[in-house]
């Protein structure tokens, strides 16, 4: 682990932004001010940030319905995202996408996606494009333990191997596909990576609640995939989902004390703080200062989202070919 | 009406259609307070406690606790103020209709009225003609059969167009109509796409028919394409309507006004004319005058005098002479005073590029005809050039307006204040007249209409003036006296 002080602070800040963004959404959704379906990423921050801290804007990611963390980690604007989720015409997608379809193609973020398992084939296309361009860029698809059961994901893995696409399949195993347990729904024994391996890919595994585990694992994965001709790879991170499948999910499927336990033992932010303090890399004061700054930034994004322009009926008809 | 409120089976969630009352916590006749527990209601998913939303008395309990399910919206109890009479509660219950809150409630209502019985029984009670009962094995809709029977249509030759060959109402209507003689318009010119222009097929066809080049046209159709309308806009109106337009519906074209604000002259003219027509009590005197002699004399006189005086110049001269002979017509009206003048300042109405103007031939009674002609010519030129000044138009005692050159027979002019009258001169017409010897002869006449300000000039005075004028025109030698 040889990260500079600046890199450590940036990584922590990125995770904290995601955490507070989500915690704040959780509050504002309860009041009914935010419309639609929202799926929170809280608990998995170390994966998004540990992956994206290695990427440039030329590298592409394709996300999921639980996409806020990936978007923020890939560089999407916090205020633009908050406005989008609040349905403003000033949002990243002018209020036309919402939580499940946030995208910023210029930042290499090819979209969150409302369809479970739809992202993997798209990342194969982006990986083929990267291979054609031959500049060592990659395309990454994030999939959960739910999407790993979709035929589209299987097709995508095979096609990526066949076409030697520069695609990385990142599986975030948070143990729940919607409301169904991983141990029930994934037929291979407690493992997704071995599936990818069976398609002929090199695979890695890491702890998705530990930023440093994710970061170091991804360094190896990327070193491999960025070599032209090596083709795709897969990596599975074991992680935790702090909230329900969607906001409003009563989570009756959780075990007694489970949520408290994972918040206590498997919180990537707490783990990060402990690691860097123990190693003498950062002081509590450094991190406390970041915490305060991030809280204010999120507060500001909500202020902006509430004040932002609302879309009008005319906006329905733009950004699509409508002349039939 | 006392404060009576129904308590109905509530709807919790999209799928709830019915519920059962598990237990009442309040008895009939008991009062309850807002927030108090009223009853327990069970659905197939949950058991819920129902709390009172306001203070009231449970006046009537219609649905005791039981295992029987009641549909959403069913009346369970009636709440009201303590002093509400029972009769009112009864009336309320009798009149109560459950709201249709669920699909099931809508679908489960009274059965729809039965469709009218088919065939014979459905025949109208008072048919236009005696219905002829049709007995058939063919599939035919009830309405079609009714129509066929009423109109005596033989249904056997009809090919049914309905499902599985059933005869429809439309089929019977078709059978009722006479077969039409075939009359077709045939093929048309096929005009292929060309790279020079992006045009709809019909636009191309019309352009080819009228020899219109498409290349310069800016299309206003979908995706910038040249439409029928774009080409039709270029078809010359004199061209006969193209064959393809036959039977086409009439289409309105753009008819936007081009807005031209009044300029200064027009503003003044408009204001003065409006004022004049609204405030001056006009009356009109009409007379016709024979001008054969005047026209003959004009040729000779113009030659002799070396002038190009027009008929109108002679009329101005005649008017001026008549005015000085009738000073009671040679007037201006100012408030409550009439100003009469010794000499006649005759205004002539001239159409200029800036609109109607009325320059004045001053003291026309003192001018000989050549001077009048020169003066009017100068004034008209000035008017055409837009160079008439205030001094050219101020005052005047009388106006002459001549529209004879446009073939106008007669018209009524508006007085040009402060002048007392205006003469409207129509065109010359050949008319048949009875001569002194009783024969029929033709002569050339003009119609003169004088608009008169009745405040200053009476009918008799105006009439006498016109008599003089008519005399001067019919015996024009007097103009040179």
């Amino acid at each position, binding site marked *: 682990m040889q990260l500079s002080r600046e890199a450590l602070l940036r990584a922590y800040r990125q995770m904290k932004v995601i955490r507070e963004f989500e915690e704040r959404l959780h509050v504002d959704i309860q009041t009914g001010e935010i419309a639609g379906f929202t799926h929170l990423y809280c608990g998995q921050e170390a994966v998004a940030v540990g992956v994206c801290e290695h990427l440039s804007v030329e590298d592409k990611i394709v996300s999921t319905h639980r996409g806020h963390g990936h978007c923020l980690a890939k560089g999407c604007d916090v205020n633009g995202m908050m406005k989008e989720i609040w349905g403003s015409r000033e949002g990243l997608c002018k209020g036309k996408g919402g939580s499940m379809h946030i995208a910023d193609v210029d930042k290499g973020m090819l979209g969150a996606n409302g369809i479970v398992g739809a992202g993997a084939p798209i990342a194969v296309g982006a990986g083929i494009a990267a291979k054609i361009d031959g500049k060592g860029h990659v395309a990454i698809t994030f999939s959960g333990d739910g999407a790993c059961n979709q035929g589209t994901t299987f097709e*995508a893995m095979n096609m990526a191997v066949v076409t030697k696409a520069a695609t990385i399949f990142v599986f975030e195993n948070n143990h729940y596909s919607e409301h169904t347990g991983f141990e029930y729904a994934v037929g291979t024994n407690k493992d997704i990576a071995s599936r990818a391996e069976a398609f002929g890919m090199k695979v890695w595994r890491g702890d998705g609640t530990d930023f440093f585990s994710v970061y170091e694992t991804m360094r190896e994965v990327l070193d491999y995939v960025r070599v032209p001709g090596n083709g795709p790879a897969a990596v599975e991170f074991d992680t935790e989902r702090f909230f329900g499948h969607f906001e409003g999910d009563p989570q009756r499927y959780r075990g007694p004390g489970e949520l408290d336990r994972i918040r206590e033992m498997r919180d990537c932010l707490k783990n990060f703080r402990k690691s860097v303090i123990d190693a003498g890399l950062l002081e509590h004061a450094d991190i406390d200062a970041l915490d305060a700054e991030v809280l204010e930034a999120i507060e500001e994004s909500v202020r902006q989202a509430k004040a932002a322009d609302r879309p009008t009926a005319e906006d329905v008809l733009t950004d699509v*070919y409508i002349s039939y | 009406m006392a404060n009576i409120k129904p308590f109905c089976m509530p709807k919790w969630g999209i799928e709830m259609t019915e519920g059962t009352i598990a237990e009442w916590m309040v008895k009939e006749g008991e009062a309850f307070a807002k927030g108090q527990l009223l009853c327990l209601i069970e659905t197939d998913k949950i058991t819920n406690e129902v709390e009172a939303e306001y203070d009231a008395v449970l006046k009537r309990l219609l649905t005791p606790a039981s295992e029987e399910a009641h549909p959403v919206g069913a009346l369970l109890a009636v709440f009201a103020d303590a002093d509400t009479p029972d009769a009112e509660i009864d009336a309320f219950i009798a009149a109560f209709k459950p709201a249709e809150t669920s699909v099931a409630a809508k679908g489960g209502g009274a059965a729809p009225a039965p469709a009218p019985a088919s065939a014979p029984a459905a025949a109208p009670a008072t048919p236009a003609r005696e219905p002829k009962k049709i007995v058939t094995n063919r599939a035919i809709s009830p309405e079609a059969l009714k129509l066929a029977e009423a109109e005596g249509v033989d249904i056997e030759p009809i090919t049914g167009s309905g499902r599985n060959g059933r005869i429809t109402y439309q089929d019977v209507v078709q059978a009722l109509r006479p077969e039409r003689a075939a009359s077709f318009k045939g093929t048309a010119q096929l005009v292929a796409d060309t790279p020079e222009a992006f045009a709809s097929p019909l636009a191309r066809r019309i352009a080819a028919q009228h020899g219109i080049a498409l290349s310069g046209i800016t299309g206003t159709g979908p995706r910038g394409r040249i439409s029928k309308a774009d080409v039709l806009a270029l078809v010359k109106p004199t061209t006969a309507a193209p064959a393809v337009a036959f039977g086409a519906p009439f289409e309105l074209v753009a008819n936007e006004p081009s807005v031209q604000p009044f300029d200064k002259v027009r503003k003044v003219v408009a204001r003065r004319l409006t004022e004049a027509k609204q405030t001056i009590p006009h009356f009109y005197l009409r007379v016709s005058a024979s001008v054969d002699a005047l026209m003959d004399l004009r040729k000779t006189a113009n030659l002799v005098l070396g002038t190009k005086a027009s008929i109108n110049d002679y009329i101005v001269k005649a008017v001026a002479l008549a005015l000085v002979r009738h000073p009671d017509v040679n007037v201006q009206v100012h408030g409550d005073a009439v100003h009469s003048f010794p000499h006649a300042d005759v205004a002539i109405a001239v159409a200029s590029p800036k609109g109607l103007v009325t320059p004045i031939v001053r003291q026309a009674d003192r001018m000989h005809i050549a001077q009048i002609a020169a003066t009017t010519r100068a004034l008209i030129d000035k008017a055409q050039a837009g160079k008439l000044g205030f001094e050219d138009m101020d005052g005047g005692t009388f106006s002459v307006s001549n529209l004879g050159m446009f073939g106008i027979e007669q018209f009524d002019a508006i007085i040009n204040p402060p002048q007392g009258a205006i003469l409207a001169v129509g065109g010359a017409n050949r008319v048949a007249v009875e001569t002194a010897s009783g024969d029929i002869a033709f002569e050339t006449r003009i119609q003169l209409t004088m608009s008169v300000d009745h405040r200053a000039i009476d009918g008799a005075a105006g009439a006498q003036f016109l008599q003089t004028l008519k005399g001067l025109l019919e015996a024009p030698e007097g103009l040179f006296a």
Partner: protein
Amino acid sequence: MAKMMYRDAVVSTIAEEMARDENVVCLGEDIVGGMGTPGGPEAIGGIWSTSTGLFGKFGADRVIDTPISESAIMGAAAGLALSGKRPIAELMFADFIGVSLDQIWNQLAKFRYMFGGKTKCPAVIRMAYGAGYNAAAQHSQAVHQILTGMPGLKVVMPTTPDDVKGLLRTAIRDDDPVIFLEHKALYGVKGEVSDDPDYMIPFGHARLSRAGQDVTIVSTGLLLGFCEAVADKLAAEGIGCDVIDLRTTSPLDEETILDSVEVTGRLIVVDEAPPRCSLGADICALVAEKAFASLKAPPLSVNPPHTPVPFARELETAYLPSVDKIEAAVRKVLSYR
């Protein structure tokens, strides 16, 4: 003007556009053919010979032979389009939209709108459709009625080799996803083709293939030829038919249809898809809504029956709208009292 087959118009246009713009790539099952076999690449071309020679000219990076994975093909096209490429993906049989529909209608079609207009999605999805090969229910369907109803897609249905040339080039250069439906029974049809390297036919611009003033016949694809045969037969009787080849169903050239009906007062739509919610029903409704006063007879749509496409020769022939059925429909409309 060169004379070439419909299929050659497809492959030559792709080749010209790939040579013009290095971002154009194509992908699909067996578009190279023979990959991983003793025969080697191009041992056998795609089954329609609509990609012959591309691999040799442009190489494996730009001519991507894929496994049988329709979802992944459509998804890869989506990812390529979002990454600055201009993919031309081949679905082989239009019937296979069933296994790849999510990527077409939830992904490709919606990106630009969902992302607030901040991306383009220049993908062409080519697929062979239609009956005529006795290929039975899962390899013979006309699927345009499903795809035309999806916002965000443009749907092209060329009839002639020249249409293929002009419309495919427009499709490849378009920044929105375009569904390009090639009728498999037309692949062998020959016709004059423009040799202008920039020849493009705008979308939503119908072609009038016969001009007449008594009845309007709207169609496209294989059945257009049947309509022309009917028009030619009736012309000899003094009955004139406007035969409109739509060329694209989205956008639909409403203007040309309405212009024609205003002249003729009678409408027949001949559509290869089943009748319910069909292109025929849509156009009849359009004319009823917008040219009601011009109509002299009820508009009529000629479709196959509401059945799957059958296999046996006799059955498939009976299924498709035929010249006789179209003629009967025209005469029915003409005889309306």
